[in-house]
């Protein structure tokens, strides 16, 4: 209905001929850096802590499991189907996601420069577990810690090929809509803890 008319208006406004081929877009502008694992961990930790997130380093998957267990004692919890959580031996008696105090996930990647978690929706990770509960705990192996956004977009150049939703999470949910006073935990989790596991 409107499609042809709108496209036609755009074409005429631009002075293009029907079926005119286009020039190449400017080359992709992504920069590359490589740092040591230690540097990446230090950067990630500093960036997330600056946003009032928490980072816990664990030497083994077992300590990661024990850390999670102690953090969720007495709480209503929901965990994602991430295979890495199973690998760590984290097994949870799930409540319904809207009722949970804590949501536990892994993450597909983490970005050192900005303290970001990258969550790709699929059979393992859901959209809502990292979103509805007031606290989010993510258990992530250090091997998934990338440098930055450019590094992510180099490895995942077309995110939509594999998922309906890829979300970058950088710190706890926040607002400054009233008098520019910072308040955390508006609609998403106000607390976020990333457990970085060496393995």
């Amino acid at each position, binding site marked *: 209905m409107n499609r042809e008319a709108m496209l036609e208006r755009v074409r005429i406004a631009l002075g293009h001929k029907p079926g005119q081929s286009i020039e190449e877009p400017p080359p992709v502008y992504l920069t590359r850096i490589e740092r040591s694992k230690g540097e990446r961990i230090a950067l990630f930790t500093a960036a997330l802590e600056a946003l009032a997130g928490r980072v816990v380093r664990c030497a083994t998957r077992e300590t990661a499991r024990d850390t999670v267990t102690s953090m969720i004692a007495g709480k209503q919890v929901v965990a994602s189907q991430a295979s890495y959580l199973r690998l760590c031996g984290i097994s949870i008696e799930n409540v319904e996601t*809207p009722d949970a105090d804590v949501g536990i996930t892994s993450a597909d990647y983490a970005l050192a420069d900005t303290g970001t978690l990258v969550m790709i*929706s699929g059979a393992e990770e859901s959209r809502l577990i990292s979103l509805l509960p007031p606290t989010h705990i993510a258990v992530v192996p250090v091997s998934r810690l990338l440098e930055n*956004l450019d590094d992510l*977009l180099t490895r995942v150049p077309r995110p939509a090929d594999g998922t*309906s939703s*890829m979300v*970058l999470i950088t710190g706890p949910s926040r607002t400054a*809509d009233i008098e*520019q006073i910072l308040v955390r935990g*508006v609609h998403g989790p106000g607390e976020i803890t990333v457990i970085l596991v060496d393995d």
Partner: protein
Amino acid sequence: MSAFVPLDQLRNTMADASLQTAIYAATGRLITKRKGSVGEETLPDYQALRDQAHGIKRHAIENLDFYLKQLETNVIAHGGHVVWCNSGTEVADFILSLAKQRGARLIVKSKSMTTEEIDLNERLEHHQLEAVETDLGEYILQLAHQRPYHIVAPALHMTRFDVADIFTRQLGVEREEVIENQTKIARRVLREKFLKADIGITGANFLVADSGAAVVVENEGNARLSSSAPRIHIVIAGIEKVIPRAQDLGVFLKLLGRSATGQALTVYTSFLSGPRRTGEVDGPDEFHLVLLDNGRTKLLADAQKRESLFCIRCGACLNHCPVYRKIGGHNYPWVYSGPIGAIITPQFHGVLKDPWLPYASSLCGACAEVCPVKIDIPRLLLDLRSDVVQARRWKGSARVEQATFRAFAWIATHPRIYASLGAWAALLAPRGDNGWLRRLPFFMRVGALKKWVSERDLPVPARKSFRQYWRGRPG
């Protein structure tokens, strides 16, 4: 022209000391935050990124027909629908008929300037559909029946006490003046809406052609909830939001958060394409992308001014504009305020509707300096001023101005007359005290000039014209 300027409104804004403080403090904080995030140490390739962003936007806009088709193909390939709308009415009609077919009653919305532009909420409410804004600032404004004061900080002009009044009156809750608790009230009320809603509406900061995806950036999580909790997700975006590749986000995301609020990345960046896929745990069953024209193709036709469509709505030009910082957001005639509003509003509505808009600038250039996509706003303002004059000429108004400039042109092109008039003017020029003229002689206090000089002191003119001085200089 002055007849069209909302002078009383402007005076009220400028006489309101607490409002002035609020605007100045808020924009000042945003200026500081931005500055700290784009410096040599934090973002060394900031200027290169701006050039890249400008280049990509130019390419995308100049090949918009191609990228819209590519976008559509990819959205459909991922199971989504694409709806092409000429106007706000068509958007509302689409949503109403979809809601009717699906038996939907409640809609949750995340912040979107595009839906503000087409007054979507009013149109839906008119048909007994409840559409709830879920961004905290927008929610407050919806309860107060106001439009956004600022592109990224919509309730910038309100205090906690205003919010307390609004919540008490509209939600029937006990008066609450602590901001943290006000936020909790909103979270509680809106959480229920999210879980009940049938349809979620979001805007899009970018539409990625090679992926068929909508990219939404935000801090609160309400856009994630709007796009993930209800069973239908509708994205409404202007056609100018298209960028060629997901990899271009490496440029834009680094600029957008920093220019808006000084954040390297906003808390959430969602990359959304199509409904929930096979095997995915959750997500909507339906995904509709509404592509809106609403006058954008008019802007596109002007090769110079189509640059206005590069805007990524960061709000930096508002924060840095001495005019916006004085007159605030509500004195601009449309939802887009500040310098960007001054260049796009006349192009959408026609230059004669609010002819004063392109003049609401000192042309200081601060807006262009901070624009992450390097839109040459001052040049566009000048182009639009010229359009205003041109349009008036067609209408036969602006006779005095025309005659004045014609006379000046004649004098300026006759050197002898110019020189002798210069000498006479120097001789007859009024004398002041301490080098300043506080009051002009009576014959100069007429018409528009009278108003202009009533607010200004002028330096005393030289006793000799420049030409006389030049001839008489030693050696």
